[in-house]
Protein backbone atom coordinates (compact mmCIF):
# COMPACT_ATOMS: atom_id res chain seq x y z
CA UNK A 1 0.00 0.00 0.00
CA UNK A 2 1.34 3.42 -0.96
CA UNK A 3 2.38 5.20 2.25
CA UNK A 4 2.16 8.68 0.72
CA UNK A 5 -1.40 7.99 -0.35
CA UNK A 6 -2.24 6.62 3.09
CA UNK A 7 -0.75 9.73 4.65
CA UNK A 8 -2.83 11.96 2.37
CA UNK A 9 -6.02 10.00 3.09
CA UNK A 10 -5.60 10.00 6.86
CA UNK A 11 -5.07 13.77 6.87
CA UNK A 12 -8.21 14.21 4.76
CA UNK A 13 -10.14 11.82 7.02
CA UNK A 14 -9.13 13.62 10.22
CA UNK A 15 -9.77 17.00 8.64
CA UNK A 16 -13.28 15.99 7.59
CA UNK A 17 -14.17 14.57 11.02
CA UNK A 18 -12.81 17.55 12.96
CA UNK A 19 -14.27 20.20 10.66
CA UNK A 20 -17.73 18.58 10.39
CA UNK A 21 -18.44 17.78 14.01
CA UNK A 22 -15.85 19.73 16.00
CA UNK A 23 -15.64 23.00 14.06
CA UNK A 24 -11.85 22.60 14.13
CA UNK A 25 -9.58 23.10 11.15
CA UNK A 26 -6.22 21.32 11.24
CA UNK A 27 -3.20 21.25 9.00
CA UNK A 28 -0.03 19.14 8.93
CA UNK A 29 3.18 20.49 10.44
CA UNK A 30 5.93 19.69 7.98
CA UNK A 31 8.68 19.48 10.59
CA UNK A 32 6.48 17.96 13.30
CA UNK A 33 8.17 15.24 15.30
CA UNK A 34 6.93 12.73 17.86
CA UNK A 35 8.96 14.51 20.54
CA UNK A 36 6.33 17.24 20.51
CA UNK A 37 3.86 14.79 21.93
CA UNK A 38 5.54 14.59 25.33
CA UNK A 39 2.89 15.65 27.81
CA UNK A 40 3.36 19.24 28.88
CA UNK A 41 0.09 19.68 30.70
CA UNK A 42 -1.70 16.50 31.59
CA UNK A 43 -1.67 13.05 30.07
CA UNK A 44 -1.85 11.97 26.45
CA UNK A 45 -5.10 10.36 25.35
CA UNK A 46 -4.28 7.54 22.97
CA UNK A 47 -7.08 5.97 20.93
CA UNK A 48 -6.67 3.32 18.28
CA UNK A 49 -8.74 1.30 15.85
CA UNK A 50 -7.94 -1.43 13.32
CA UNK A 51 -9.10 -1.80 9.76
CA UNK A 52 -8.93 -5.24 8.16
CA UNK A 53 -9.56 -6.64 4.70
CA UNK A 54 -8.58 -10.24 3.84
CA UNK A 55 -4.82 -10.40 4.56
CA UNK A 56 -4.43 -6.65 5.00
CA UNK A 57 -4.62 -4.69 8.24
CA UNK A 58 -4.05 -1.06 9.16
CA UNK A 59 -3.88 0.26 12.71
CA UNK A 60 -4.73 3.92 13.23
CA UNK A 61 -3.38 5.51 16.42
CA UNK A 62 -4.45 8.98 17.50
CA UNK A 63 -2.58 10.82 20.25
CA UNK A 64 -4.28 13.85 21.78
CA UNK A 65 -2.91 16.23 24.35
CA UNK A 66 -5.32 16.78 27.21
CA UNK A 67 -5.97 20.52 26.51
CA UNK A 68 -6.62 19.91 22.81
CA UNK A 69 -9.00 17.02 23.43
CA UNK A 70 -10.75 18.95 26.21
CA UNK A 71 -11.24 21.92 23.89
CA UNK A 72 -12.66 20.02 20.92
CA UNK A 73 -14.91 17.92 23.18
CA UNK A 74 -16.38 21.12 24.65
CA UNK A 75 -17.00 22.35 21.10
CA UNK A 76 -18.57 19.02 20.15
CA UNK A 77 -20.95 19.04 23.10
CA UNK A 78 -21.65 22.77 23.03
CA UNK A 79 -20.38 23.22 26.59
CA UNK A 80 -19.01 26.52 27.87
CA UNK A 81 -15.32 27.12 27.19
CA UNK A 82 -13.08 26.51 30.20
CA UNK A 83 -15.17 23.66 31.60
CA UNK A 84 -12.95 20.78 32.75
CA UNK A 85 -14.21 17.44 31.48
CA UNK A 86 -13.64 14.10 33.16
CA UNK A 87 -10.99 11.70 31.89
CA UNK A 88 -13.83 9.30 31.10
CA UNK A 89 -15.43 11.91 28.83
CA UNK A 90 -12.09 12.49 27.13
CA UNK A 91 -11.22 8.83 26.54
CA UNK A 92 -14.73 8.26 25.22
CA UNK A 93 -14.38 11.21 22.85
CA UNK A 94 -10.96 10.01 21.67
CA UNK A 95 -12.43 6.60 20.84
CA UNK A 96 -15.34 8.13 18.96
CA UNK A 97 -13.00 10.30 16.91
CA UNK A 98 -10.90 7.22 16.09
CA UNK A 99 -14.10 5.44 15.06
CA UNK A 100 -15.20 8.28 12.78
CA UNK A 101 -11.73 8.61 11.24
CA UNK A 102 -11.76 4.85 10.57
CA UNK A 103 -15.12 5.20 8.81
CA UNK A 104 -13.73 7.97 6.62
CA UNK A 105 -10.70 5.80 5.79
CA UNK A 106 -12.92 2.90 4.75
CA UNK A 107 -14.64 5.33 2.39
CA UNK A 108 -11.24 5.84 0.74
CA UNK A 109 -9.75 2.33 1.02
CA UNK A 110 -12.84 0.48 -0.19
CA UNK A 111 -16.01 -0.81 1.37
CA UNK A 112 -14.71 -4.34 1.95
CA UNK A 113 -12.62 -3.08 4.85
CA UNK A 114 -14.00 -3.80 8.32
CA UNK A 115 -13.60 -1.55 11.39
CA UNK A 116 -12.82 -2.92 14.87
CA UNK A 117 -14.31 -1.40 18.00
CA UNK A 118 -12.05 1.49 19.07
CA UNK A 119 -9.96 1.34 22.24
CA UNK A 120 -8.24 4.04 24.24
CA UNK A 121 -6.09 4.72 27.28
CA UNK A 122 -4.39 7.58 29.06
CA UNK A 123 -0.61 7.60 28.85
CA UNK A 124 1.97 9.65 30.69
CA UNK A 125 4.54 8.97 28.00
CA UNK A 126 4.01 7.75 24.49
CA UNK A 127 6.38 5.94 22.20
CA UNK A 128 5.62 5.76 18.52
CA UNK A 129 7.41 2.85 16.89
CA UNK A 130 9.84 3.46 14.07
CA UNK A 131 8.50 2.67 10.64
CA UNK A 132 5.03 3.98 11.36
CA UNK A 133 3.65 6.75 9.20
CA UNK A 134 3.49 9.60 11.67
CA UNK A 135 1.65 12.82 10.99
CA UNK A 136 1.62 15.83 13.25
CA UNK A 137 -1.36 18.17 12.91
CA UNK A 138 -1.99 21.54 14.45
CA UNK A 139 -5.13 23.62 14.83
CA UNK A 140 -5.51 27.39 14.49
CA UNK A 141 -4.41 27.93 18.08
CA UNK A 142 -1.24 25.91 17.76
CA UNK A 143 -2.31 22.81 19.68
CA UNK A 144 -0.84 19.67 18.17
CA UNK A 145 -1.80 16.05 17.96
CA UNK A 146 -0.34 13.02 16.24
CA UNK A 147 -1.57 10.24 14.04
CA UNK A 148 0.38 7.01 13.49
CA UNK A 149 -0.45 4.36 10.90
CA UNK A 150 0.96 0.87 11.04
Amino acid at each position, binding site marked *: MDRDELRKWIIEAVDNVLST*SFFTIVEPIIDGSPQAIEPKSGPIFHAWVELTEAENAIKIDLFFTSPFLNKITLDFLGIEEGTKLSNQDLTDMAEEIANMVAG*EMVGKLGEKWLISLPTSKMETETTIAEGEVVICLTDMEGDVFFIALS
Partner: protein
Amino acid sequence: MALNILVVDDSHTMRKFIIKAIEASGVDCGLIIEAPNGREALKKLEEHWIDIILTDINMPEMNGIEFIKKIRESEVHKKLPIVVITTERSISIMKEVEDLGIEGYMKKPFTPEEIRKTLTSLIGKEFLPDQ
Protein backbone atom coordinates in the same frame (compact mmCIF):
# COMPACT_ATOMS: atom_id res chain seq x y z
CA MET B 1 -47.79 14.62 19.73
CA ALA B 2 -44.44 14.68 21.52
CA LEU B 3 -42.12 11.94 20.32
CA ASN B 4 -40.27 9.65 22.70
CA ILE B 5 -36.87 8.87 21.20
CA LEU B 6 -34.42 6.10 22.10
CA VAL B 7 -30.74 6.90 21.37
CA VAL B 8 -28.44 3.84 21.26
CA ASP B 9 -24.67 4.37 21.02
CA ASP B 10 -21.75 2.99 23.04
CA SER B 11 -20.13 6.44 23.18
CA HIS B 12 -21.72 8.59 25.87
CA THR B 13 -20.27 11.77 24.31
CA MET B 14 -21.92 10.82 20.99
CA ARG B 15 -25.21 10.19 22.81
CA LYS B 16 -24.96 13.63 24.42
CA PHE B 17 -24.26 15.19 21.00
CA ILE B 18 -27.23 13.43 19.39
CA ILE B 19 -29.55 14.41 22.26
CA LYS B 20 -28.46 18.06 22.04
CA ALA B 21 -29.09 17.98 18.29
CA ILE B 22 -32.55 16.48 18.81
CA GLU B 23 -33.41 19.09 21.43
CA ALA B 24 -32.26 21.88 19.10
CA SER B 25 -34.09 20.43 16.09
CA GLY B 26 -37.47 21.96 16.84
CA VAL B 27 -39.10 18.52 16.83
CA ASP B 28 -41.60 18.18 19.68
CA CYS B 29 -39.86 15.67 21.93
CA GLY B 30 -41.12 13.97 25.04
CA LEU B 31 -38.67 11.58 26.63
CA ILE B 32 -35.21 11.04 25.17
CA ILE B 33 -33.91 7.75 26.52
CA GLU B 34 -30.28 6.57 26.22
CA ALA B 35 -28.74 3.10 26.00
CA PRO B 36 -25.08 2.07 25.45
CA ASN B 37 -25.81 -1.10 23.46
CA GLY B 38 -28.60 -3.19 21.99
CA ARG B 39 -29.11 -5.28 25.11
CA GLU B 40 -29.73 -2.23 27.31
CA ALA B 41 -31.87 -0.67 24.59
CA LEU B 42 -34.19 -3.70 24.58
CA LYS B 43 -34.67 -3.24 28.34
CA LYS B 44 -35.52 0.45 27.80
CA LEU B 45 -38.12 -0.57 25.21
CA GLU B 46 -39.85 -2.66 27.86
CA GLU B 47 -39.85 0.26 30.31
CA HIS B 48 -40.91 3.16 28.07
CA TRP B 49 -43.16 3.93 25.14
CA ILE B 50 -40.79 4.75 22.27
CA ASP B 51 -41.79 6.35 18.94
CA ILE B 52 -38.47 6.28 17.11
CA ILE B 53 -35.02 4.71 17.57
CA LEU B 54 -31.67 6.20 16.55
CA THR B 55 -29.00 3.52 16.77
CA ASP B 56 -25.32 2.93 16.11
CA ILE B 57 -24.19 -0.36 14.53
CA ASN B 58 -20.75 -1.11 15.97
CA MET B 59 -21.34 -1.60 19.69
CA PRO B 60 -20.15 -4.12 22.28
CA GLU B 61 -22.40 -6.74 23.95
CA MET B 62 -25.21 -6.47 21.40
CA ASN B 63 -24.47 -4.64 18.17
CA GLY B 64 -26.93 -2.67 16.09
CA ILE B 65 -27.69 -5.48 13.65
CA GLU B 66 -28.63 -7.93 16.40
CA PHE B 67 -30.65 -5.18 18.09
CA ILE B 68 -32.62 -4.33 14.92
CA LYS B 69 -33.23 -8.05 14.29
CA LYS B 70 -34.71 -8.42 17.79
CA ILE B 71 -37.00 -5.46 17.19
CA ARG B 72 -38.18 -6.73 13.83
CA GLU B 73 -38.93 -10.13 15.40
CA SER B 74 -40.95 -8.55 18.20
CA GLU B 75 -44.74 -8.50 17.81
CA VAL B 76 -44.93 -5.33 19.89
CA HIS B 77 -42.07 -3.30 18.43
CA LYS B 78 -41.60 -4.63 14.89
CA LYS B 79 -43.00 -1.50 13.19
CA LEU B 80 -40.90 0.99 15.15
CA PRO B 81 -39.07 3.40 12.84
CA ILE B 82 -35.31 3.02 13.10
CA VAL B 83 -32.62 5.42 11.92
CA VAL B 84 -29.05 4.10 11.83
CA ILE B 85 -26.24 6.52 12.73
CA THR B 86 -22.89 4.88 12.08
CA THR B 87 -19.34 5.04 10.79
CA GLU B 88 -19.93 1.69 9.12
CA ARG B 89 -19.21 1.66 5.37
CA SER B 90 -18.97 -2.07 4.68
CA ILE B 91 -21.27 -2.95 1.78
CA SER B 92 -22.19 -6.36 3.19
CA ILE B 93 -23.00 -4.99 6.65
CA MET B 94 -25.02 -2.06 5.35
CA LYS B 95 -26.90 -4.39 2.97
CA GLU B 96 -27.78 -6.56 5.96
CA VAL B 97 -28.99 -3.48 7.86
CA GLU B 98 -31.10 -2.25 4.93
CA ASP B 99 -32.63 -5.69 4.46
CA LEU B 100 -33.84 -5.56 8.06
CA GLY B 101 -35.86 -2.47 7.19
CA ILE B 102 -34.72 0.92 8.40
CA GLU B 103 -36.24 4.32 7.79
CA GLY B 104 -33.04 6.30 7.58
CA TYR B 105 -29.24 6.17 7.60
CA MET B 106 -26.82 8.85 8.74
CA LYS B 107 -23.08 8.62 8.30
CA LYS B 108 -20.79 9.82 11.11
CA PRO B 109 -19.48 12.50 11.24
CA PHE B 110 -22.70 14.44 10.82
CA THR B 111 -24.00 17.87 11.67
CA PRO B 112 -26.95 18.71 13.97
CA GLU B 113 -28.78 19.95 10.86
CA GLU B 114 -28.67 16.43 9.38
CA ILE B 115 -30.41 15.09 12.51
CA ARG B 116 -33.09 17.76 12.21
CA LYS B 117 -33.67 16.96 8.53
CA THR B 118 -33.83 13.22 9.20
CA LEU B 119 -36.31 13.53 12.05
CA THR B 120 -38.56 16.02 10.28
CA SER B 121 -38.56 13.87 7.14
CA LEU B 122 -40.08 11.02 9.16
CA ILE B 123 -42.88 13.05 10.74
CA GLY B 124 -46.10 12.82 8.81
CA LYS B 125 -45.38 9.33 7.52
CA GLU B 126 -47.62 6.49 8.62
CA PHE B 127 -45.42 5.49 11.57
CA LEU B 128 -44.99 9.07 12.88
CA PRO B 129 -48.16 11.14 12.61
CA ASP B 130 -48.04 14.93 12.21
CA GLN B 131 -47.08 16.80 15.35
